[in-house]
């Protein structure tokens, strides 16, 4: 936050209240952390220091960050195989994330989980599930626990467009609607289920699915973190206030392949399409433009935020590379409570 204060005197006058300025600056910071984290993950993979099957979140940062910015630390999220962004946005630390990806002892799951399985109970992250759609029940159940125990925690279930193929999604929406559970289903439509365009696997309109269960539904530009935030704010407040579940569709795009090894992509999506999203629809660029147009932060302020994140990522990966592997005796620990 120091850098924000430092930049204040240079700012031109603007209308956004201080709280809002700080909120969007911190969202920028979060999105940059995720972006640089993922670039480092890609590098670890390319230099054979990490196994494959890491699914990068680059390009989709505004969804996790915009939604998680509306959550309290004790609210729940469930995540997916493409989960690094969700974890970081909910408050996980970069060094322990890297340690997990490298299978090291200080990792969030002591190296047992890996890229597709990071949970962080302390920040309400119940866990990333590598079974597509697999966490829909879990998020719904966590919301049920909150309601049953008279708490006002909400649960957010992140999932991709592909998960809409799974029957569980519809079973949970039915229950959540009947039981008026404080759960928000956030669909990250990045256009593809692996290598197949979602329109080839998914019939009908996406939001109509939730509406059919009487669930409050909204759809936003998932590259515009302010829009995501505004929509999520409303849905989370509703849920917290006892008005039941919601469904939020976010249109977004992954900049990299389905996983780090997916580099030949032209047979399923064109270079032009990728270029369009990367140059015109990058959530970081979009927010950066808004921040400077509003006079909240200039390019040098943003550069400062990026430098800070870069330093954090570098320190984090060094920490993880230097960290020890778990003891072999840990193999059969944690099978039972």
């Amino acid at each position: 936050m120091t850098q924000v204060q430092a930049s204040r005197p240079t700012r031109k006058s603007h209308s956004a209240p201080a709280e809002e300025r700080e909120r969007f600056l911190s969202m920028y910071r979060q999105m940059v952390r995720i972006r640089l984290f993922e670039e480092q993950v890609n590098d670890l993979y390319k230099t054979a220091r990490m196994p494959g099957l890491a699914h990068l979140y680059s390009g989709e940062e505004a969804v996790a960050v915009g939604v998680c910015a509306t959550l309290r630390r004790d609210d729940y999220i469930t995540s997916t195989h493409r989960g690094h962004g969700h974890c970081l946005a909910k408050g996980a630390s970069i060094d322990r994330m890297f340690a997990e990806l490298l299978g090291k002892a200080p990792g969030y799951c002591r190296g047992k989980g890996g890229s597709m399985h990071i949970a962080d109970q302390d920040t309400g992250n119940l866990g990333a599930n590598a079974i597509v759609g697999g966490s829909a029940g879990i998020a719904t159940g966590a919301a049920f626990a909150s309601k049953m125990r008279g708490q006002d925690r909400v649960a957010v279930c992140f999932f991709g467009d592909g998960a809409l193929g799974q029957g569980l999604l519809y079973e949970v929406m039915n229950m959540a609607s009947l039981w008026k559970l404080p759960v928000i289903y956030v669909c990250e439509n990045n256009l593809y289920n692996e290598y197949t365009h979602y329109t080839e696997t998914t019939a009908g309109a996406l939001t109509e699915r939730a509406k059919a269960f009487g669930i409050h539904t909204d759809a936003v530009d998932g590259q515009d973190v302010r829009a995501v935030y505004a929509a999520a704010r409303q849905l989370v407040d509703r849920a917290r206030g006892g008005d039941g579940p919601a469904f939020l569709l976010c249109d977004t795009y992954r900049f990299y392949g389905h996983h780090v090894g997916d580099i030949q992509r032209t047979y399923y999506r064109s270079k032009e399409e990728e270029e369009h999203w990367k140059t015109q629809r990058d959530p970081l660029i979009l927010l950066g433009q808004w921040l400077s147009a509003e006079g909240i932060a200039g390019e040098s302020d943003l550069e400062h935020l990026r430098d800070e994140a870069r330093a954090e990522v570098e320190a984090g990966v060094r920490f993880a590379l230097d960290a020890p592997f778990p003891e072999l005796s840990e193999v059969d620990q944690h099978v039972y409570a």
Partner: protein
Amino acid sequence: MRTIAYRDALREAIRDEMRRDERVFIMGEDIAGYGGTYAVTKGLIDEFGEKRVRDTPLAELVIAGAGIGAALGGLRPIVEIMTANFSLLASDQIINSAAKWHYMFGGQAHVPIVFRMPGGGGAQRGAQHSQMLETMYAHIPGLKVVMPATPYDAKGMLKSAIRDDDPVLFVEHELLYSVKGEVPDESEEYTVPLNRGIVRREGRDVTIVTFSRMVHICMQAAEDLAKEGIAAEVIDLRAIRPIDLELVMDSVKKTNRVVVAEEGWKYYGTGQGIAAMIYEHAFDYLDAPVGHVAGADVPMPYSKPLERAALPTKADVVAAVTAIVPARQAAATPTPAAAGAR
């Protein structure tokens, strides 16, 4: 003979059968344009088109269920489940429907369907992407479960599975797809039965019973054991339901010692089932308890050293054998007492 990879052998089998029988079609996630996660179906769409090589929604339950319905409707579906892990989402349809339709309705209809899926760990994919679940299916009457270890068997058994009138779980292994082996020329038609194991290596001191990827590990172990003067017979079961019990029993009667080796979990599993069959049918022939090599009794850890520790290795097989075969047994002739005990 040619040398081709396991994945190519599978593709040839599918292609041959699709040419032979127009009722055969294949469906699964990302199998058409992309050619499948393990590139088994690559190029099939060019020959057979979208009609018979179909991408499905990301929905294992419906893939399996619709496959069963299609089989009842007169087609011969091959269903690709991306990995065995995801077959758990399809398992209701496989176990409650496919396995039971023929019996439950008094033999009226049969369900000629093949569910192809790879199991296995070893690539640091973590607990939800590294499972061997064949035991679960092998437990179910009405299903056939085959687990070829070589390209030759992969092709020959997949062809048999497609022609079979019962539901067949065709369990591949993620680390077998690139394994190469000899396969007859494309013009040469052959099949491999779904209920016959094979002796991969003859020996008289101990029988190692195994299947799938562990066959290769056991063959290497047998090589090491030979250097220590122990002649191990390696049986590749090729199918675990129905199991070629006769082949196992004949070998046990010869060697009097057995080690069962599998990648999957130990308890209540295929290996223990085989051990129980041996105790039941060949107890009097045994000179030692049946040895058992299996995966650690834990969900698969991600971390490389932990994953290595959780997977059964060549050293584990060698240790299990030397634990039940007396040193230099190969050189010694049986003592009168031991011979009398038989």
